[in-house]
């Protein structure tokens, strides 16, 4: 599935931001970068809705707002239900001739907090009902806004404040829930993973998500310097390393048919380009505890899991 939209880097640079500067995100905030990139994909009138979380809080501190487009936030677990209500209202109001616009896109943003766990019911329901909207999951892999607590999206053995690197249990015992595959299993028309380090890929995917009729799900990896414990200048580096190590491969599923995206495809075709997971783990303080003699074996276990999931993905993409 191709988008009809062709653009140059200059086009993107000259396109007005729909999210204004001056909001309160941290230095090096991955989600803030991802939002700006994704919103460049807007193709016309668009309404945004956000779940409670980092980006919601930093962009809308009354009496200020960073949003140049209509925006609503209601609660934490229900952004997909917001989107359902907005999309449905637009549909019926258009039918009753109360809207002059030809078409208005609906985009829902939520963190891994508002998606994997507390938000999955509303998301699953909206997907099942087939509402026409793009759901963007900005994944910083923990409940960052409330102080770095673990989520279903937190990777295995990562330190968080509710899965600390303790003497008995070294970080989160569970694994990262395969949320995007779960969304593919909902048989929605478009699911994709993206990383802010590959902005062109991410922007094209956001546009495809908006263009498709029906629910679209975009899983954007958005590293957090505070929660992952790395220097604020290295956010893009982390987002790139995640792809290069196949910890976070980039792919699309169009009508449930998988295909690898270029940055990951190149690794599939040239396996020597696949970087060891240790490089990724070593670069972040949240995995620091794995580099003691007692815990070193865990990094090998993590490599095995990454390899296993990578192989499974290749199979799904018809590239074994």
């Amino acid at each position, binding site marked *: 599935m191709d988008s009809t939209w062709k653009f140059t880097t200059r086009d993107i640079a000259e396109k007005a931001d729909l999210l204004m500067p001056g909001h309160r995100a941290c230095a090096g905030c991955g989600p803030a970068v991802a939002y700006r990139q994704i919103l460049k994909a807007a193709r016309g*009138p668009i309404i945004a*809705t956000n779940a409670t979380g980092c980006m919601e809080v930093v962009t809308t501190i009354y009496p200020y707002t960073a949003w140049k487009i209509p925006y609503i936030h209601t*609660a934490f677990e229900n952004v997909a*239900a917001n989107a359902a209500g*907005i999309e*449905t*209202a637009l549909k019926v109001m258009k039918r009753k001739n109360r809207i002059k616009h030809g078409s208005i896109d609906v985009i829902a943003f939520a963190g891994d907090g508002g998606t994997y766990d507390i938000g999955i019911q509303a998301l699953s*329901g909206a997907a*099942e009902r087939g509402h026409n909207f793009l759901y963007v999951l900005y994944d910083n892999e923990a409940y960052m806004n409330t102080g770095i607590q673990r989520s279903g999206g937190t990777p295995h053995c990562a330190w968080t404040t509710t899965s600390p690197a303790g003497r008995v249990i070294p970080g989160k015992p569970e694994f990262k829930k395969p949320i995007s595959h779960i969304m593919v299993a909902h048989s929605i028309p478009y699911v994709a993973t993206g990383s802010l380090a590959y902005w062109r890929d991410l922007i094209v995917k956001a546009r495809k998500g908006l263009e498709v009729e029906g629910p679209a799900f975009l899983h954007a990896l958005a590293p957090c310097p505070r929660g992952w414990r790395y220097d604020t200048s290295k956010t893009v580096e982390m987002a790139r390393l995640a792809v290069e190590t196949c910890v976070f491969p980039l792919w699309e599923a169009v009508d449930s048919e998988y295909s690898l995206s270029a940055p990951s495809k190149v690794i599939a075709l040239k396996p020597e380009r696949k970087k060891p997971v240790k490089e990724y783990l070593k670069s972040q303080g949240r995995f620091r505890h794995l580099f003691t003699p007692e815990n070193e074996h865990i990094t090998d276990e993590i490599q095995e899991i990454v390899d296993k999931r990578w192989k499974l993905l290749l199979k799904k993409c018809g590239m074994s």
Partner: protein
Amino acid sequence: MEMTSTKQKMRALSGDEAVAYAAKQCDVDVVAAYPITPQTIIVERFSEYVHNGEVDTEFICVESEHSALTACLAAAATGARTFTASASAGLALMHEILYVTSGCRAPVVMAIANRALSAPINIHCDHADSMVERDASWIQIYVENSQEAYDSIIQAFKIAEHPDVLLPTMVMLDAFYLSHTLESINVLTDEAVRGFVGTRKIPLVTNHEGRLVPFKLDPENPITIGPLALHDYYFEHKRQQEAAMQSALQKIREIHNEYEETSGRKYGNGLIDPYRLEDAEIAAICIGSTAGTTKVVVDQLRAKGVKAGLLRLRTYRPFPSQDIIQALENVEAIAVMDRSHSFGAKGGPIFHEVRHLLYDAPTRPQVVDYIYGLGGRDMPQTLIHEIYKDLERIAATKQIKTPVQFIGVRD
């Protein structure tokens, strides 16, 4: 004054069906709902209207009540007229979003078929579900019968959407006694209802650029709804909600009177519905369908020369304090009947709120509380007679033996 009450049709409808029918006639744009006994017939009937093309409404079969109210709120924020219904655990699941809806000043209308809260699980009549939400800044109206349910849903849209109000509104009807019982209902014509509720007008607000724009999600005039407001601004938002509640007192009365002109029907003054209270020496206070039974008891007592009366509270939020104080001016002994309880408190919620008002009365009457009917325990005339007998004793002796009693329960 144009009386169009002759242009009404008589239909046999249960309370749920009457509610669905009223919503049908109000040109609702979006209904997002989840079934729960005993509200299910509302959503089922409405689904039939939608699937048969009898209404131009989008029906979202949401996956939970929390999403039902969320979707209605977001749809209302987009400019749609919205309706939903729930009860008991479903309303409890909406709890968080009740506050968000009123905080966002969305004029959602919701019917509640009053049912007990678990545990134990119970599907029958009880006011716990809506009573516990009286702090959520929703307008609350309790109906006595299914005719009133029909009439009140229609009024609710006009009340909620009024620019001086802009508060979501819930209309309560008792589980099974009203929701499932067939009554002969007079229904207005579609034109009469549409003429009464009109189309939803979106109020204007000052946006962050200082311009007056419609308060809705519209790419023409972008605004942010549902922001973070910290200690420096949250309090003012809540103060505004309270001001809206106070304005609602008058608006509810006005809209009730307008509706009387259209339909020929009234319920007291819209806020309270006193029955034979003018010269009453003893009186009961209650909400909901029990008022119907109590009116029968009052008539029986009056026939025997007892100066008994009843004060039915129709509008519970905003609480019609002035009207209540005035209505009870000359009553010597009052029995509040609470079909819900605040566990650990001295008596139920209506007892608290009424007795609190009477603290300032020039002559304080005796006030007692009867917790009754929880989980659908029937409240027959015999028990209500017992209450009035107690009141006669209290009025005569000026003494209260037991201020709070559970009545109709096994010992």
